[in-house]
């Protein structure tokens, strides 16, 4: 078995896991299980990033998104309870809307120029990523850092707040 076939097998396995876990995130009755499957979706997405050559982005996705954000959701929703679902006509409308969007993207995919281009077998280096971040994206990086600090302050303020104040 050569390397390319191994890549294809890994892609098929994790693509199926990603789609199934997306469906479970939406449809599972328990919010805790839904958030857990969001973590599994993040992990399978990280594997797909590695197949594309973005190893560092995959590690960042695992550490920041799955490790921090999804875990935060998981612990937070233990404090909440489920609201009732929408009526059946809304779900039917949502299904029609979704099928319409999926059909649109299928047409784009069939007629698209990108479709048959094989994905390259390179690995984006840490040096190139850091270079792009510091030279071209220093201002967005600054804004993202400020956003994270403000979120931290906001979370602490809300956590210390008494009900009714």
């Amino acid at each position, binding site marked *: 078995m050569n390397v390319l076939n191994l890549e294809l097998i890994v892609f098929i396995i994790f693509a199926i896991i990603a789609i199934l876990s997306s469906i479970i995130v939406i449809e599972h009755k328990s919010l805790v299980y839904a958030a857990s499957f969001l973590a599994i979706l993040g992990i399978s997405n990280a594997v797909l990033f590695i197949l594309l050559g973005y190893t560092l982005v995959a590690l960042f996705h695992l550490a920041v998104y799955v490790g921090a954000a999804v875990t935060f959701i998981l612990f937070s929703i233990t404090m909440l309870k489920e609201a009732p679902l929408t009526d059946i006509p809304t779900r039917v409308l949502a299904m029609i809307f979704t099928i319409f969007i999926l059909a649109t993207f299928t047409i784009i995919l069939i007629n698209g120029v990108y479709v048959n281009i094989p994905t390259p077998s390179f690995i984006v280096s840490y040096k190139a990523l850091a270079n792009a971040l510091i030279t071209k994206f220093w201002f967005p990086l600054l804004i993202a850092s400020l*956003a994270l600090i403000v979120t931290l302050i906001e979370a602490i303020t809300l956590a210390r707040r008494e009900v009714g104040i």
Partner: protein
Amino acid sequence: MMLTAGMFLSISFIMLAIGIYGIVSRRNMVRMLLSAEVIFNAALLTLLILSSIPIHAATQPDKPAIGGAIALLAIGIAAAEIGVAISIAILLFQIKQHVDVYELRKFRG
């Protein structure tokens, strides 16, 4: 058989459709946030696919690195967004004892 951009894009579009269905059909705020996260994962995958394919490699040799840098920033911002959204949901639950978004319209100033 080789891995092509179309394979990755089809996975991403399916995830996008599932996420949109979740957002449109639910009224629980946390459920809608989880659906938005599914859409975020689909968008991130699409960004990395389109930046990795060598379609303008001659004119834009650092395109893969730029795509990766944007993805890193997007993941950081998404973490911040989750923190804000969950905090609002917890606050709403403390006040109203539920997280139904239909009730949020009563909070308009």
